[in-house]
C-alpha cells in the first residue's frame, strides 16, 4: 500500500512539476530560510547552500569534500613571479541560466567577472548601495580584507581577466573560491536596472551553476531545476527541493519518514536513533573549526612556555571533550588547523595528560591563582564555555592552581578578552572561512592580530616569519612546508590550550549517492544521484 502511495505521489510530482516523465526529485531539509539569493550580500551557511552552491559558480572552486582549489569558470590561471598579478582564462561557451524571468543573449565573459567584484566595493557602481538594496554591508568582501589587497580587476579580452593586488597574498585564490566571489550576470543586472526592478536580483537569481532557481515560498520551500546548459554537464537529479525545517528533531523525523532525502545538523540526542536505522546513513566529519583557550603570553608566569605546557598537561582533555560534546563527539585537536585542511602536520602531538609533572612545574613557577574566562554563548567549537571552565577549574585545583572564573556576555566578553592586558586563560574558538591555513594562523596568531583576534597577545618571530612568508608564496607545496614548521613552533611554544574540532553531521537516505560532507560546512548537490 505504502509503495503504491509513493508511486502515486511520484507520478503526481512528475505531472505537476513540468510534466517530465520519471523526474528525479531530491529533497533537502534545510535548517533555516535563506536571507536572500545574492551570495555577495549574505553571510550564513544556509544562505550559501541556497544560492552560491546551487545557482552560481566561481572562477575557482573547492574540490568536492576538500579544501584544495580546482578550476571553476576559469580553466586555468597564471600568477606573476612577484605574486601581484593573477590572469584568469575563462571557460569558453558558458551559458547563464534561461528561466521564465531572464533569457541570456550572450555567454559568460570577462565583463561579468569584473562586474561581480566591482559591485562589492565601487561606490560609483549603482549595485553597491541603496539603489539596489537598503543597508548593504558586503560583509564577506570587507571581512576577507579584499579592499586592502585588490588594486584592480581588468578585462583583457572576452575570455581573459586580470586581477592586480597591492601586495602578494597567496590565500587570494582560496578567497576567490568563497561564496561571496560567485560570478553574477552583468546582462541580467543591466536588464533589471533598466526595468527599475533591481531588488529582483536578490530574489530571482541567475547564475551559471548546476541548478537554476524556480520558486521560493517564503520560509517554506525553495524549488530548483537542473540547469540543462550547465558547463560541467547536466546533473542527474531533475528537481532539487529545499524543505525549510528549523527544528532538528523534526528534520531527522522527516528523513526517517522519507519526506526528505538529506538533512544536516541532527541533535546529539538523536544520533543513537539514526545509527540504529537501516534506511539512513549518518555522515560525519571534523568541522573546519577549533575550540581553544588562549593564555596571555605577556604576563608572568604565563610568559614561560613550560608553565603553559604544564597547565595544558594538568587538564584531562579526553574527559573534558566527552563531557562537553557528549554523543555528538569531537576530534581532539593536535594542531590549530583541523585534519581536513591541507598542511595539517600529522607528526605534531598535543600535550598529554600528566598532572604529576604539571604540579611540579607550576609549583616551581609559583603559579597559585589564575583567571579563567567563560561566556554564555553556545558555539560550534564549544557548546558550553561555563561547563568547560568548571571542569578545567577542577583539574587545575588538583595541581594546586586556584582558578577564578570570569564571566561576561558574549560581545562584551570578546571586547574585554582581546585587550592586551587581559590576564589568565581565555576560552575562544574559530570557524574557518576559506579552507586556507592562513585563515587560521594569521587571523588568530599573527603579531598584527594582537588586540584584534590574537587573544594570547603572542608574537613569536620565527612563527611570524613563517606565516608571512607562506602568505606571500604562491606555490602550495612550499606553503605546506612553511605551515608544517609553523605548527611545530606553535606546539613548542603552546600559546594556547587546544580543545577540539567539533564534529559535523548529516543524515542521508541510503538510496542517495554522491553526497559528501564538506569541510567548509557547505552542502553541495552537484554530483548527487538518487535511486528510485
Amino acid at each position, binding site marked *: 500500500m505504502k509503495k503504491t502511495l509513493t508511486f502515486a505521489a511520484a507520478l503526481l510530482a512528475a505531472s505537476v*512539476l513540468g510534466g517530465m516523465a520519471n523526474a528525479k526529485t531530491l529533497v533537502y531539509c534545510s535548517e533555516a530560510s535563506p536571507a536572500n539569493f545574492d551570495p555577495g550580500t549574505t553571510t550564513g551557511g544556509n544562505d550559501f547552500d541556497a544560492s552560491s552552491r546551487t545557482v552560481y559558480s566561481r572562477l575557482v572552486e573547492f574540490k568536492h569534500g576538500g579544501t584544495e582549489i580546482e578550476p571553476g569558470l576559469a580553466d586555468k590561471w597564471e600568477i606573476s613571479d612577484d605574486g601581484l598579478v593573477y590572469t584568469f582564462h575563462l571557460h569558453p561557451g558558458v551559458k547563464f541560466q534561461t528561466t521564465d524571468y531572464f533569457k541570456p543573449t550572450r555567454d559568460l565573459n570577462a565583463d561579468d567577472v569584473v562586474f561581480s567584484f566591482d559591485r562589492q566595493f565601487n561606490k560609483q557602481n549603482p549595485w553597491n548601495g541603496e539603489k539596489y538594496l537598503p543597508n548593504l554591508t558586503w*560583509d564577506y568582501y570587507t571581512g576577507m580584507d579584499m579592499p586592502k589587497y585588490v588594486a584592480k580587476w581588468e578585462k583583457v579580452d572576452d575570455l581573459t581577466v586580470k586581477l592586480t593586488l597591492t601586495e602578494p597574498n597567496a590565500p587570494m585564490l582560496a578567497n576567490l573560491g568563497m561564496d561571496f566571489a560567485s560570478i553574477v550576470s552583468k546582462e541580467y543586472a543591466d536588464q533589471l536596472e533598466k526595468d527599475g526592478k533591481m531588488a529582483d536580483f536578490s530574489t530571482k537569481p541567475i547564475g551559471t551553476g548546476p541548478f537554476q532557481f524556480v520558486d521560493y515560498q517564503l520560509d517554506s520551500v525553495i524549488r530548483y531545476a537542473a540547469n540543462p546548459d550547465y558547463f560541467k554537464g547536466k546533473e542527474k537529479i531533475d528537481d532539487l527541493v529545499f524543505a525549510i525545517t*528549523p527544528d532538528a*528533531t523534526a528534520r531527522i523525523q522527516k528523513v526517517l519518514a522519507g519526506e526528505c532525502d538529506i538533512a544536516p545538523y541532527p541533535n546529539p540526542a538523536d544520533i543513537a536513533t539514526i545509527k540504529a536505522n537501516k534506511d539512513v546513513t549518518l555522515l560525519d566529519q571534523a568541522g573546519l573549526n577549533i575550540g581553544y583557550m588562549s593564555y596571555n603570553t605577556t604576563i608572568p608566569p604565563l610568559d614561560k612556555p613550560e608553565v603553559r605546557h604544564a597547565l595544558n598537561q594538568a587538564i584531562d582533555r579526553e574527559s573534558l571533550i566527552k563531557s562537553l560534546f557528549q554523543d555528538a563527539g569531537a576530534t581532539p585537536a593536535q594542531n590549530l588547523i583541523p585534519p581536513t585542511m591541507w598542511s595539517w602536520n600529522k607528526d605534531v602531538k598535543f600535550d598529554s595528560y600528566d598532572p604529576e609533572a604539571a604540579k611540579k612545574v607550576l609549583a616551581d613557577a609559583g603559579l597559585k591563582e589564575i583567571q579563567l574566562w567563560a561566556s554564555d554563548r553556545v558555539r560550534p567549537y564549544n557548546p558550553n564555555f561555563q561547563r568547560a571552565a568548571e571542569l578545567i577549574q577542577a583539574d587545575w585545583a588538583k595541581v594546586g592552581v586556584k582558578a577564578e572564573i570570569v564571566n561576561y556576555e558574549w560581545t562584551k566578553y570578546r571586547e574585554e578578552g582581546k585587550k592586551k592586558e587581559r590576564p589568565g586563560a581565555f576560552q575562544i574558538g*574559530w570557524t574557518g572561512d576559506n579552507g586556507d591555513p592562513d585563515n587560521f594562523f594569521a587571523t588568530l596568531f599573527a603579531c598584527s592580530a594582537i588586540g584584534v583576534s590574537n587573544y594570547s597577545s603572542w608574537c613569536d618571530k620565527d612563527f611570524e616569519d613563517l606565516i608571512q612568508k607562506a602568505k606571500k608564496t604562491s606555490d602550495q607545496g612550499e606553503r605546506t612546508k612553511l605551515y608544517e614548521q609553523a605548527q611545530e613552533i606553535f606546539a613548542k611554544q603552546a600559546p594556547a590550550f587546544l580543545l577540539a574540532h567539533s564534529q559535523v553531521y548529516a543524515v542521508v537516505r541510503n538510496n542517495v549517492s554522491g553526497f559528501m560532507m564538506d569541510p567548509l560546512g557547505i552542502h553541495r548537490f552537484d554530483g548527487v544521484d538518487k535511486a528510485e
Partner: protein
Amino acid sequence: MLRYLLNKIALLVPTLVGITICAFAFVRLLPGDPILAMAGEHGVTPARYEQLKEQFGYNLPIWEQYARYVGEVATGDFGVSISSKRPVLQEFKTLFPATLELSFFAMIFAMVLGIPAGIFAAVKRGSWFDQSLMGTALVGYSMPIFWWGLLLIIFFSGYLGWTPVSGRIGLQFFLRPITGFMTIDSILYGKWDALRSAFSHLVLPAIVLGTIPLAVIARQTRSAMLEVLGEDYVRTARAKGLSSARVIGVHALRNALIPVVTTIGLQVGTLLAGAILTETIFAWPGIGKWMVDSIFKRDYVVVQSGLLLIALIVMAVNLIVDVLYAVINPRIRAA
C-alpha cells in the same frame, strides 16, 4: 453604544504608546551591541563600526531614535529587514495567512471538543467523567508546547506514519499562493488531493496549538454551565416538562456561552504566543517561526516591528471581542 466604542478606542492609545516603547526598548535592552552582534567572530574595525553605526542610525541620541521610529511606524513604514533586505510589512503580509489558517483550525479543534466536553462534565458533575476531564484539562493547560509537539510527531508521523512530519503541504504540490491560505488556494486551483494534503499537514500542529485553548474552553464552559444550570429559569424549564436535551441545549447553553465567547476571544493572544513554538517545530511558514528566525539572526528591525504588528493584531481582536460582547450582552453598554 458609540460612546462605549469611542471609550474603548481611546483606551487603546496609551497601550499603543506602551507597546512601541516596549518593542523599541526590548531590542536595546538585549545584551550586547547590535552592530558587534551582527559582525560575528570576525569583529569590525573601529572605523567600520562607526560607519555601520551611522548607517543604522544608532549614533543618534536615544530619544531621537525613538521619535524617528514612531514617526516611521505612524506612516506605515515598519522598516526593512537587516538580513533579507525586504520590507518587514511585506514579509508579514506573506506569512500572516499561514498563522491565521493554523490558528483558525486550532480554534475549531478547541471549540468542537472543548464546548461539548465542558457541557457534559457540568451535566454529570462529580462523575468519573467530570473528574478525569478536569484532570486532563489541567494537564493540557500545563503541557509544554515544544515537548507535546515533538511527542506527537515521533508517535504519529515517525512511529505510525499517519501524518506528515512537518510543512504546510506535500512537496509535490506546487501552488503559487492566491489568498495565502493553503486550504482555500487548493480549492481555487481545483486540486482536491492538494486540499487533502493541506488538511493532513494541519492535523498535528492544530492539535498542538489548540491544546491550551481546549483546556481553557472546556473548564470555562463547565463552570459557566454549572452556574446557569442552577438558575431559576432552568428549573422552570424543567418544571414545564421540557426534555433534558432541550433544557440544556437551548435554555442553559445560550446563556452559558456568553462568558465562553469572551474566553475564546481572549485566547488569540495565547494562540499567537503558542504559534511561535508550534510553527518552529512543524516548520510552519508563519509569523511565529519568522520571529524566532529573526531573533537567531539578530535581525532587530524584524523583531521590533514584528512585535509591534503582533501586538496590534491582539489589540484589534480584543477590541472586536469587547464590541461583540456588548452586542450580545446589552448590560455592558450601560456600565
